[in-house]
């Protein structure tokens, strides 16, 4: 080819920088009325990080309560509210918003677009999600509660019927739970629609589907999955509200309704939801591992196929949460096998990450440390998942701390680790400054140690028969020492999280100036200045391969010759 330089240009903005302009109020106004995908992405992430701290504080309160037998740090009622709010917060107010925040910020940049497909819908969706979260937390102070301490929901994050019926849950706690999640669910649906439309309709010239960065691919899969995942929950919550407000009988066992239907509906949402959360974590690993291994991702088409495969299979595994409700052996066998089937595409991914690292020139900066830990922790989480998919085994361990340990291995060991990785990796792009590597290493090692102290130990508590959601326990059960260890690990993680927050703030003011491309990466977002201007790309980019920046950096050895 004659012309090796693609029309991707850096640019100099002649308008004065926005951050410096205006009073505080004017800047605040700028954030409130923004329709810019980058600002909304930042809003999503900051909002989620705040709730991560809130949810984390709830977890610490739970751990203090369980540290020693017969403790009375929390009352039983508050304890119920805390574990309900901890679960709901972490899934709906932290996990999904932060991952959609990353998608919001990065997807248009990665596919060479100026903005999302529907910028105003994007703002609307964010504010719905945010206000839904605030409505949920308003329950602590608003309205008379069952115990006179606010009406926070206390029915568990899965809100099983018939506990949610008016008779068993008077007060407004359950209503707050349903209403807040319906509101934020609308927001999630809007964002999912937006991301799908953006990725399908806004790609820059030359960015065919098989040239998209894997991050964008996985976000497409996640958003499409979200379309059919969050909506069943919204539907079921409307049914719950019909029961509670209009005297309906959907889940009213006294009038022929079935509590089992709620459990089915909840897990038809609940299990794909796990993949909605974990696939973005995979997406992050797909970007970070190649860059820090200095190699192209191994098996790109297999990664795409595996992601689509996981999404499809995940829609047919929900009842593995329900082995103990007494299904027929045929149903049990079906859900055992379909659950085990998930292991195949997931295994493909783990092998591909390892193969990407293999023979690479690996540099263990903080993002890569997190991603490396993620690969191995996710492997363990997957293995305990396969163990739990065996119905007779599940009958033994259902709702024990083994299950808690298993899914925290996924949610913390895989998702939170990769969220940290993503923030360390893209922080320079967003703020223009590097995060401190020294603090990053402290953060990583403390978090890693705390994580393993807590969640490895929890598996054994499960084997020893400790059930989930119990307020306290008797001293003669043999759980005392292990519970103390788990709580200590939780506090180590808490310290690591504080270091992380400190690093975020400190680096914003004192971090090393990053430049456009601090990691020497290959996707389009690194072609823009840091932070990117409002319009992202001054001229529309055009790509010829999966790694457009590689082509520019190595004009004599470009990728498009090989793909």
């Amino acid at each position: 080819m004659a012309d090796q330089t693609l029309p991707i240009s850096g640019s100099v903005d002649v308008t004065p920088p926005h951050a410096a302009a205006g009073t505080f109020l004017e800047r605040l106004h700028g954030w409130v009325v923004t329709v810019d995908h980058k600002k909304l992405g930042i809003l999503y992430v900051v909002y989620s990080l705040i709730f991560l701290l809130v949810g984390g504080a709830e977890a610490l309160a739970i751990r203090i309560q369980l540290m020693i037998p017969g403790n009375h740090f929390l009352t039983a009622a508050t304890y119920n509210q805390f574990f309900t709010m901890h679960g709901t917060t972490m899934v709906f107010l932290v996990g999904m918003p932060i991952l959609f925040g990353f998608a919001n910020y990065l997807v248009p940049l990665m596919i060479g677009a100026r903005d999302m497909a529907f910028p105003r819908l994007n703002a609307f969706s964010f504010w719905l999600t945010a206000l839904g979260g605030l409505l949920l937390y308003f329950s602590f102070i608003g309205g008379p509660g069952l115990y006179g301490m606010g009406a926070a929901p206390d029915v568990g994050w899965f809100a099983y019927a018939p506990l949610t019926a008016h008779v068993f849950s008077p007060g407004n706690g359950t209503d707050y739970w349903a209403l807040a999640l319906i509101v934020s669910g609308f927001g999630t649906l809007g964002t999912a629609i937006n991301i799908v439309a953006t990725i399908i309709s806004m790609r820059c010239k030359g960015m065919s589907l098989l040239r998209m960065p894997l991050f964008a691919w996985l976000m497409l899969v996640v958003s499409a999955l979200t379309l059919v995942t969050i909506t069943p929950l919204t539907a079921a919550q409307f049914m719950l509200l019909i029961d509670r407000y209009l005297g309906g009988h959907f889940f009213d066992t006294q009038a022929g309704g079935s509590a089992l239907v709620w459990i089915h509906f909840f897990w038809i949402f609940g299990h794909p939801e796990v993949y909605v959360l974990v696939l973005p974590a995979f997406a992050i690993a797909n970007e970070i591992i190649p860059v820090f291994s200095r190699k192209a991702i191994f098996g790109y088409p297999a990664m795409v196929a595996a992601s689509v495969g996981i999404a499809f299979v995940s829609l047919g595994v929900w009842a593995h949460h329900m082995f103990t409700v007494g299904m027929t052996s045929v149903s049990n066998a079906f859900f055992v096998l379909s659950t085990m089937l998930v292991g195949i595409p997931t295994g493909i991914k783990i092998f591909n990450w390892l193969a990407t690292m293999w023979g690479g020139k690996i540099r263990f900066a903080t993002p890569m440390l997190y991603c490396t830990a993620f690969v191995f922790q996710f492997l363990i989480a997957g293995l305990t998942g396969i163990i739990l998919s065996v119905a007779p085994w599940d009958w033994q361990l259902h709702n024990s701390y083994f299950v808690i340990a298993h899914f925290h291995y996924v949610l913390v060991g895989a998702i939170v680790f990769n969220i940290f990785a993503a923030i360390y990796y893209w922080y320079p792009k967003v703020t223009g400054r590097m995060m401190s590597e020294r603090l990053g290493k402290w953060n990583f090692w403390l978090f890693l140690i705390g994580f393993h102290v807590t969640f490895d130990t929890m598996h054994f508590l499960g084997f020893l028969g400790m059930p989930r959601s119990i307020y306290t326990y008797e001293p003669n059960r043999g759980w005392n020492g292990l519970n103390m260890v788990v709580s200590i690990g939780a506090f180590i993680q808490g310290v690591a999280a504080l270091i992380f927050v400190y690093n975020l703030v400190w680096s914003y003011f004192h971090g090393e100036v990053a430049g456009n491309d601090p990691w020497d990466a290959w996707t389009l977002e690194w072609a823009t200045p840091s932070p990117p201007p409002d319009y992202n790309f001054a001229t529309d980019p055009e790509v010829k391969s999966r790694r457009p920046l590689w082509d520019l950096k190595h004009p004599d050895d470009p990728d498009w010759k090989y793909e």
Partner: protein
Amino acid sequence: MSAIPTVPELQDQPWHLPSRGRIGMLSLIIGESAIFTIFVVAYVFYIGKSLSGPTPGQVLEVPIFNTICLLSSSITIWLAERRIERNEIKAFGLWWGVTIALGVVFLVGTGLEWYKLIYHDGLTISTNLFGTTFYSLVGLHATHVVIGLAMLLLVLVFTLMGRVTEHHAERIQVLALYWHFVDAVWVVVFTVVYIVGR
């Protein structure tokens, strides 16, 4: 990535992507379908599980006329879509108006049916499981009809004001896609409620 250099594909090919409006609407329809699926599944699961009357067989009448109206509105809106593409604004307005009229007839029909069920047969949403599932499923669909009608009406107002041109054809077709979806859902609701469930 194979290790063999390959011939790069021709540059300067035209770069076409699907319209974002259509993709967005299709995504919304997929999401909405999931909501309806949950309500339909609940309806089917609870058929015949009510502990007390009235039962569907006693009180439901098959709304043939209503159904014909709603389904034919899908045809009239399609005719309107074709007219706007060819910039025949008057004919577009006519067919669009007919679509709205048919939608309103359907809604009135549903209203009359509910009036009869509530005041003559004493079936409310809290009477029994049939009432709960019936009113929520049909009500969910009717809500979508109302939202759709409001949007259609808006377009009609602008058409009468002379603001609609063929440049708006795509937006109007996206809206029509929603209306087609509402009609298609009715086929499912009708089958489940009035044929299977009776």
